[in-house]
């Protein structure tokens, strides 16, 4: 197709043209902020200027119709200025506090909840799932929706000991980089790929396929006289890379794919250092459309945490204080052999002292 005047490498537009005039004026000279109510903040500049923010949750997957609706709200209430947060919330930037109420009302009527600030739950960072990815062990948007329906009150109320960050990824490629979240929900494949030996020679190049496996689990093999491959099952970590390069290596399996839950990670440096999330529940069934087992498990962990953690204590800090045996005791989650690490340097995760509470 002939395209006139092809431009490339222009990069993103300069953000400065999108800044609210009050933000431009007070850029870099903000003095302090206050959370006025869940989802509403004021930032006060040294000049005395005040900019108000109204934050609303979105499903991340947005129709252009909704984006246009947000644009319309911005025109009415903010002079056209808005932004998104790193956790998929939309934020409206206002200079007139009288407009906060009417904007909140409209957002509420449209079904986008105002909240996500302070010691509560913000939106769930998540991935593509069945909406767009080929290697997803489960859907993403659906699990997130089902879980957030139950955690909704912690989004609209700041009623937890500290911030609680939930993330979801539909396979261990972890496009949402969920590995440092207070609660991480992670889709898992549990079986090595099923090889379609009939299609494989037609669809895939064996050397490319063999090279695609990060653990070297795939070997060339001759099956019924035809060039194909075999998978050393013990070596497979279900990453789906082979399926990415070769559709005849089906990694998805309706019966054996499921969801795992991880807890206690954080990225902020506040008080304690950033930490990885650790395994809480190795496998829950993949049960659309509302994943009741997953929802129940997450809600249970949140409730136990809310009840027992001290003020300002993140999930991981709380668990470190009480110890993992008590975490499993309080949550009632069964401890299994899968909880014990067996990858590189696993020994560092073993208990190497007699510091035990003996309460179980």
């Amino acid at each position: 197709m002939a395209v006139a005047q092809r431009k490339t490498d222009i990069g993103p537009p300069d953000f400065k043209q999108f800044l609210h005039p009050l933000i431009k004026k007070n850029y870099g000279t903000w003095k302090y902020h206050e959370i006025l109510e869940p989802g509403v903040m004021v930032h006060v500049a040294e000049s005395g200027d005040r900019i108000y923010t109204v934050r609303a949750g979105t499903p991340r997957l947005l129709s252009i119709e909704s984006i246009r609706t947000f644009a319309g709200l911005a025109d009415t209430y903010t002079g056209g200025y808005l932004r998104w947060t790193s956790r998929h919330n939309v934020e409206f930037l206002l200079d007139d506090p009288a407009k906060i109420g009417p904007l909140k009302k409209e957002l509420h009527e449209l079904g986008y909840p105002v909240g996500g600030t302070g010691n509560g739950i913000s939106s769930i960072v998540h991935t593509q799932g069945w909406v767009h990815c080929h290697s997803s062990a489960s859907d993403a948007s659906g699990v997130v929706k089902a879980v957030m329906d139950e955690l909704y009150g912690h989004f609209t109320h700041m009623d937890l000991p500290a911030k609680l960050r939930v993330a979801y990824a539909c396979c261990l490629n972890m496009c949402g980089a969920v590995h440092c979240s207070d609660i991480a929900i992670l889709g898992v494949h549990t079986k090595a790929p099923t090889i379609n030996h009939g299609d494989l020679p037609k669809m895939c190049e064996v050397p490319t396929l063999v090279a695609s496996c990060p653990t070297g689990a795939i070997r060339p093999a001759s099956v019924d006289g035809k060039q194909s491959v075999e998978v050393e099952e013990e070596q497979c970590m279900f990453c789906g890379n082979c399926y990415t390069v070769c559709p005849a290596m089906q990694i998805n399996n309706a019966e054996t794919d499921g969801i795992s839950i991880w807890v206690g990670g954080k990225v902020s440096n506040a008080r304690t250092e950033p930490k990885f999330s650790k395994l809480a529940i190795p496998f829950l069934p993949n049960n659309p459309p509302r994943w009741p087992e997953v929802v129940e498990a997450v809600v249970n962990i949140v409730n136990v945490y809310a009840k027992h953690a001290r003020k300002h204590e993140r999930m991981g800090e709380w668990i470190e204080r009480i110890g993992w045996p008590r975490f499993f005791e309080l949550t009632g989650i069964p401890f299994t052999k899968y909880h014990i690490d067996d990858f590189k340097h696993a020994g560092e995760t073993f208990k190497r002292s007699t510091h035990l509470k003996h309460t179980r």
Partner: protein
Amino acid sequence: MEKKELKTPLLDELEKGPWPSFVREIKKSAEKNPMARDTLGQLERSYEDRISHWKHGGLVGVMGYGGGVIGRYSDLPEEFPEVAAFHTYRVNQPSGWFYTSEALRTICDIWEKHGSGLTNMHGSTGDIILLGSKTEALEPCFADLTEAGWDLGGSGSDVRTPSCCVGPARCEWACYDTLEACYDITQSYQDELHRPMFPYKYKFKFAGCPNDCVAAIARSDMSIIGTWKDAIQIDQEKVREYASDGVDIEAEVVDLCPTGCIAWDGQKITIDNSECVKCMHCINVMPKALAPGKERGATILIGAKAPIVGGALLSSVFVPFIEMKPPFEEIKELAEAIWDVWGEYGKNRERVGEFIQRVGLGNFLEEIGLEPVPEMIAHPRTNPYIFFDEELEEDEDEE
């Protein structure tokens, strides 16, 4: 084409409940857009079958770029012909995800013309994700985007779209201009961003302070996190105000300081700043009373990644403190030095964090030309398998 009624009983369950529903979003677009309609239909099928119906694509993209478009095909093309090809664009977001209504409408109009009308605001790396267009629409859509001032982000083994926190635009804690740094670095490395030539992906994330609202330390190969060197700024009057408003300064601030460097006598707090590790906790609790110091810059950490392939890594300290002033020359020099070494010796699909684990941080520092300092480690090695340099062995022989 005849429009038969589309039934989605399973997805309809996800229109219930208080949280905003992605199903309603797809339906909003599906009313006008056949691609969105087939997306809905195929997704319902996935819900029935509990399995994805997408296939990884062959090479698709726009002329001259090696990334920015992710190819995707349906494995049910007869049933859902409108999404037989369903490629996705990563459109490089503006720093801090700031927009005007006009800018958003422009993107919506382009996407209405060329694609499904479905988006992600935003992808987890930060791009505006335009979900699903046909192969023949790729070039015209790209032309319209660039004409309107938008360009594609990264994908594959290249610089991925950098992202940053809201920073000085609306946060009093920003220790450097995250938005400008992100914009400048993105513009400086357009070639590296659009044409994959590294062993694997390379992500930059810019956080203005150790709260790290963009998860730089967990999600970027080069994590640039704002910090300060001098004393925390204190307004004692405001501290007393927090105390009388019910903040238990002893329990909530003093006792939770990780280095125990704060004292409170009921009238004023004192901080032993030489012991402070700039964790932000006290400042987070009393934003009106405390603020980061005035000698500001950033800590550069490197090597974070998600698990695939060799296990997840957090970034670790590379340069303890660096000034962050445009044009950010030190950052660029460092990044380029890293790309040189990793580009030459890194294996295919080896992230820089994994590369450093393989060759050793000590050796890597030598290649880059940085001095080892104790700020880089949690503790010195515990194993005695030290590989001494050649010269050292020779020196010892001579004695």
